């Protein structure tokens, strides 16, 4: 059966431990670069990918927000092209940049405001993919204070190794 409402792994935010260092963004950008190498990515790679994280800070409170991979995701309803889709195996909400025309319907409906227009590249939407190409989301792996953690489909914490 095709389960559109299947749950994805999730990144849980624990704002009380977010130090505001923004290393999550550094590693998000690196992970989504061509080379996936921090030095190459930051020193010379053009265009540098946009961060898929929205970092918010106000006074001492801060957190890193990325796509929540909703069970019933509004962006799926809004997408005109089918570029936004739910991965049937993992439940992740993924985005196919080739199909995206940059109509920004997803941005209009995302209640977390975590889909970013990537004007630099070619006007496509950019969002967290839970690091499909890596086994573990880069932001979670590198958060020095475990302010963002990964939980599996049942809500159990997942740790790398």
């Amino acid at each position: 059966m095709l389960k559109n409402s299947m749950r994805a792994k999730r990144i849980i935010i624990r704002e009380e431990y977010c130090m505001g260092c923004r290393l999550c963004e550094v590693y998000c950008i690196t992970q989504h670069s061509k080379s996936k190498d921090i030095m190459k990515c930051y020193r010379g790679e053009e265009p540098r990918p946009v961060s898929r994280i929205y970092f918010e800070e106000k006074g001492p409170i801060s957190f890193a927000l990325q796509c929540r991979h909703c069970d019933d995701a509004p962006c799926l309803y809004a997408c005109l092209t089918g570029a936004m889709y739910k991965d049937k195996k993992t439940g992740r909400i993924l985005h196919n940049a080739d199909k995206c025309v940059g109509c920004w319907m997803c941005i209009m409906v995302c209640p977390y405001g975590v889909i970013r227009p990537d004007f630099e590249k070619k006007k496509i939407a950019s969002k967290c993919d839970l690091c499909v190409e890596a086994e573990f989301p880069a932001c979670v792996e590198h958060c020095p204070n475990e302010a963002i953690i990964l939980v599996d489909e049942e809500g159990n914490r997942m740790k790398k190794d």
Partner: protein
Amino acid sequence: MKTEYLIIGNSITGVSCLEAIREVDNKGKIIVVSDEKILNYSRPLISYYLGKKLSKEKMAFRNKDFYEENKVELLLDTQAEKIDVAEKEVHLDSGEKLKFQKLLISTGGKPVIPPIEGLNKSREGVFTFTKFQDAREIEDYLQANDITKAVVLGAGLIGLKCTEGLLKRGLKVSLVELADRILANTFDRKASSILEEALQAEGCQVIKEDTIIRIDSSRGAIKKVVLRKGKDIPTNLLIIAIGVRPNLNLVKDTSINYDKGIVVDDHLQTNIQDIYAAGDVAQGKDLLTQKTSLMAIWPVASHQGKVAGLNMAGKPTKYFGSFIMNSVELAGIPTISFGITNPPAEAKNLETLSKTDEDRGSYRKIVLRQNKMVGAIFLGKIERAGIFSQLIKDKIDVSSFKKDLLSDEFGLLVLPTEYRKHLVQGEGIEV
């Protein structure tokens, strides 16, 4: 022929419906009837096709294996001609009768053609713009003729997207609109004027508070349009895009209730059991007014399709309603609008906040009703606009963060802590 589920219409509503059915029922037979010749395509993308931004293949919103994977029988180029409510069957143009257990009517809308003198005589060079076929015909017409100028009647969403497509191809376009501004339904005067300026800079002539009263043609081909205020515009291409209305042909002579669109209940069922309607043809609940209204927009169509599908497959699901919203990029300016954007001056209970940032080319407006958001406009800078849609939907009292609503740093952090934590740490939101 018999089927468990019959879906009339293969656009996003029909497709969402069949996906939803398959989430619940993996076996029941599904037949989709489509009057289109191609597998599926996204109607809002036809302007991209016209503007040569997308190829025909890329207009599909589901791939070619989709119907097979979902075990759906798709009848293309087939017209449903009649619904026999009593017998629970649909008559096709082929003469075949399809018996169904559950039926979804998602026949969408059809363009409104105003009574214009001379329209009937000049079929060549006059088009509507809602279907792929329309775009295709315009494309062929442009290829066959040396066209440099076009007139678009109606500066609503369709008219503007069409205008943009034509501008992209290097045509000069005259845009004729009856209202005092473009996108009158979704924008206020300020937002419209910014876009009008940008359009004009791209070679579009915007004519407001006027309309076409006569078309002059020679040998059946359009030569010129005459406006009410007396002006003539010579042209070989006219696009009529003053709006769409629900395509009610199928229900007109049946016991299915309709008003402006097919009237549906909270489960998107019509007054007849087992017959559902969704998408542009249906008249569903408006979250802001709590009444039913027509809401011909893509996200509502796909959401209604899904809810209808779940109900049809036996999983009772309520449709909580929606509100009008749009995301349009015109002349390189992205815009997003929600709900009530242009409250009439006499509406005393509505409060308006706005901010213009000339340097960054952005304009923002928020409309509040008793400290709860009921509408917004974002022009130029649209990032994070979706948060506002949730504020409208959740009817959040904004008094504690009113001053931050228009700030560039607006984000979840300005929201009340409890609500923010609910959003961020919750199980994911419900649509």
